[in-house]
């Protein structure tokens, strides 16, 4: 009986976790302008919307990712934590995080 009560509690928790993570959780991710500059300096150009303007101060683009998208990005080490706690792409453009094939570990 005790086992069945534990079973019911745990299964409700796991369904709730899965449903919340899959359908409701959103994570804000920024693109990596430092990586963009590094690539630009060696002659590789990647177009990032809003970044080709003639401004001197650039702002990183941000986008809300669903948790499955973040899980997918994590399979190729696509996201890391920045110094102030925000999530930042390991690639210059956030679009590179979606539907990308994995890198070797």
């Amino acid at each position: 009986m005790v086992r069945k009560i534990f079973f019911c509690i745990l299964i409700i928790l796991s369904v709730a976790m899965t449903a919340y993570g899959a359908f409701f959780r959103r994570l804000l991710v920024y693109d990596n302008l430092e990586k963009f500059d590094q690539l630009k300096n060696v002659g590789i150009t990647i177009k990032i919307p809003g970044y080709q303007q003639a401004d001197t101060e650039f702002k990183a683009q941000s986008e809300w990712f669903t948790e499955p998208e973040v899980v997918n990005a994590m399979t190729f080490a696509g996201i890391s934590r920045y110094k102030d706690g925000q999530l930042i792409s390991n690639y210059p453009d956030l679009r590179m995080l979606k539907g990308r094939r994995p890198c070797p570990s």
Partner: protein
Amino acid sequence: MERLRLKVQIAMAVLMNVGLFQLHFICMPVLNCHSCPVSLFGCPLGVIGQFSAVGLIPLTVIGVMALVGLVAGRILCGWVCPFGLVQELLYKIPYAKFSIPRWTRFIKYGVFGALVVAVPYFLTPESTLYFCRLCPVATIESSIPWAILQGTTNALHLSVRIVILIVIMILAMGHRRFFCKVLCPIGACMSLLNRFAAIFPERRSLCVDCSTCNKVCPMETVPNKNRFGVYDDMLEECINCLDCQKRCPTDAIRLWG
């Protein structure tokens, strides 16, 4: 049953590495590296490690693992995991067989806590002790294929990984499912839920204590009548292979707890 299970294991190993689709946003709770060029699903350990490195909890991954574990315990270890299949085939090779102490099964919980969660969280994934960088499955499915396809920049690291892989394979030749019992972090996670699982072999009153189930069990467990609260029978190691049910002379083992 053993033949059926072998067929299912081979079919699942092919299916998960067929290379036609990539559904890496889904983590199948088996050891199958998502860095493999042809892998279908994501590996929960890699994702948990990466989430840990950025200070997040992967709710879907933990939720899916918990759901699978609560419904059928470690059934995926027994019927789906490609590395489980590799180990079972290795054990069929004639080689000096040996037993291991019972306490060694607790090592895998330490491996999960330390190498999958703590090291990425505190030292970031750049640490060479990060589990994925030592994982034998990643060596087979990812490091070696990518080294062949693209070459490697870190021959020393690749060599260390191959040595670890060879050692584990030798140990798996001598002891059935050595890695699953002693080192597998996914096995550790799923083991925690085995005592609550709905589908689980249990003994009925027809049992005559012949110990046939214990002898055929690849994980050296004993189906028990009272699962919850009994901690000295290694029930958490059961992989639902159903060999015990098939071999039981009195048909005393039922599947639904």
